């Protein structure tokens, strides 16, 4: 288990380093330098020089890469080209909003998805099951930002039940909760569909498994069979996909945060990309990649704990 954990964490670190190098490589593959790209037509030689110096672009390439790497490890992701604020501070300021949004969305998705999946298992082959199957596919395929805009129109603009913009007052949980409902619902819908499908399939597979027959043959109560013998097996693929789902939730957040003008990592990156604010984009992308890999690695380790078979296939 320990060697497996070390291996997984090592791989994640390696990928972060590769991503960092790749981003640096990309910047230098492009014709023209980042400074004039960022400045656009306003570039005067002096302005450009100044910006180059500020971005650290006047130094040799390996020094730049090394600096970026060293700084990133110590938590320094560089400075905003325009406001000169540290990128780390900017991320620290907005990231809790995104995390909260993601957590609420994932909770909604888990409760609704597992609920609908179990419902489909109970009514397997009946009309409800078929309707749920169509509903799941629809929820998976409709883009979350379209749903976000419709939710905004109906529940915020027309009905006025929830705020249309922002993340709520700082320190006021009530208003923050009200502000998170619509964006979280928009993001969750895709995952309600995915999870309902997955839970249905994996429950059906487990319910027909041989070992449940054994448990029955030894006279265990049906409740114990479902809760201890079936669910423990059926939950494994759900844990696996929920971790990957976190990545996709972060992606949806980029769109949905913009729809609700909600401060978060998504709006931060989007506006930085629009202004071609290199340090902010690179810092945030690097941060999100590291965060995503952390979640996936943790989930892998949890999976190995839940399912001894995974642990063994990956050990060798």
């Amino acid at each position, binding site marked *: 288990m320990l060697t497996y954990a070390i291996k997984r964490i090592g791989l994640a670190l390696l990928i972060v380093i590769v991503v960092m190098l790749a981003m640096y490589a990309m910047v230098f593959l492009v014709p023209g330098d980042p400074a004039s790209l960022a400045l656009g037509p306003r570039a005067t030689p002096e302005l450009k020089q100044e910006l180059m110096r500020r971005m650290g672009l006047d130094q040799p390439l390996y020094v730049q890469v090394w600096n970026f790497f060293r700084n990133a490890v110590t938590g320094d992701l560089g400075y905003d080209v325009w406001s000169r604020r540290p990128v780390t501070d900017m991320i620290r300021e907005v990231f809790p909003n995104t995390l909260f949004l993601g957590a609420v969305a994932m909770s909604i998705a888990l409760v609704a998805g597992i609920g609908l999946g179990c419902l489909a298992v109970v009514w397997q082959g009946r009309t409800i099951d078929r309707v749920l199957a169509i509903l799941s596919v629809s929820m998976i395929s409709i883009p979350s930002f379209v749903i976000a805009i419709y939710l905004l129109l109906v529940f915020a603009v027309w009905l006025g039940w929830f705020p249309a913009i922002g993340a709520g007052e700082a320190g006021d949980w009530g208003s923050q909760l009200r502000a998170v409902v619509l964006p979280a619902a928009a993001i969750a819908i895709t995952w309600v569909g995915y999870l309902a499908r997955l839970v249905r399939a994996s429950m059906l597979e487990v319910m027909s498994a*041989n070992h449940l027959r054994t448990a029955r043959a030894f006279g265990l109560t049906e409740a114990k069979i479902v809760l201890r013998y079936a669910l*423990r097996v059926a939950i494994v693929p759900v844990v696996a996909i929920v971790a990957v789902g976190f990545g996709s939730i972060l992606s949806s957040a980029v769109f949905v945060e913009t729809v609700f003008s909600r401060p978060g990592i998504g709006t931060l990156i989007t506006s930085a990309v629009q202004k071609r604010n290199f340090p902010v984009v690179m810092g945030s992308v690097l941060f999100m990649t590291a965060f995503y890999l952390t979640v996936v690695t943790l989930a892998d380790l949890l999976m190995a704990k839940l399912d001894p078979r995974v642990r063994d296939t990956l050990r060798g």
Partner: protein
Amino acid sequence: MSETLLKVDDLSIAYASEQGALQALRHASLEARAGEAIGIVGESGCGKSTLASAMINLLASNARVTSGGVIFGGRDILSVSGEEKRRLRGRHIAMIFQDPMTSFNPVLTIGEQLVDFQDQREGLSKGEKRAEAAAMLKRVGIPDPERCLSRFVHELSGGMRQRAAIAAALLMTPEVLVADEPTTALDVTMEAQIIHLLRELRRDYNGAIVIVTHHLGLVGELCDRVYVMYAGEVVEEGSTEEVYHNPRHPYTQALIACDPAHLHDHAPVLPTIPGRLPDLVTPPMGCSFAGRCARATGHCRSVAPAHVEVSPRHFARCHFAQRNEARS
């Protein structure tokens, strides 16, 4: 003669299928007595697994009992309430499953499962149940029981798994032990070891053992009586000795002739039984083996044969049972 523990009486079971009701078991009867081992043999699809499931009361949800029952402790266990059915399982009638790899839960340790399997037992703490499990593992020849208890099923070797499955079945000293193909998943050496183990266990076990298999040798090694099944029917029954040396049903004769253990070293061709199983949705009017039997006459195809007693406690379901002397 010892006491009858479990009796299958004129049992018929049908499965709902798209083509109609599939009559997997037709008017089967058998008795399992204390201290006795009986064998049920036949090829796949003959109804032996259905019979085994009925004996431990774990029929599939699409199975329907159309006649008879399974009598245990003076009651038909197929018609008792769900809660009572549950109480009988494991405690009184236990089963050794066919494929131990998939029969144990993959994410719980063997120990956790062996403790859970004793849920029916009252007045024992978890620790005592675990100790009980360890003692039983030792008895079936697992050298390091504590280690085995903390293992997951995929971490055990094939032989260990089979031993653990046998230990699980014996945990609560059930009156009836049903073994469904106990050696199919094993290689030849392992198989010999498990047969040896089962024989040893038989000596100090007072319950009834039912072994369900397609493997004639296993029955010959372990069983006192044998029931030969074909197309959902018991076609011949008797003491193992008698049936193996003097089979009276053409199917039994063919089965024995096809058993690789009985072949001469220089047999030019491997004997086979021509033809295939009859359609069980609409079973034939006459003898169900008539379609594949070399001796079948018009009479065989139109009139179902009775279960004829050819010698004391040796029956065969064939019109020519009295005349069918084995050719050897």
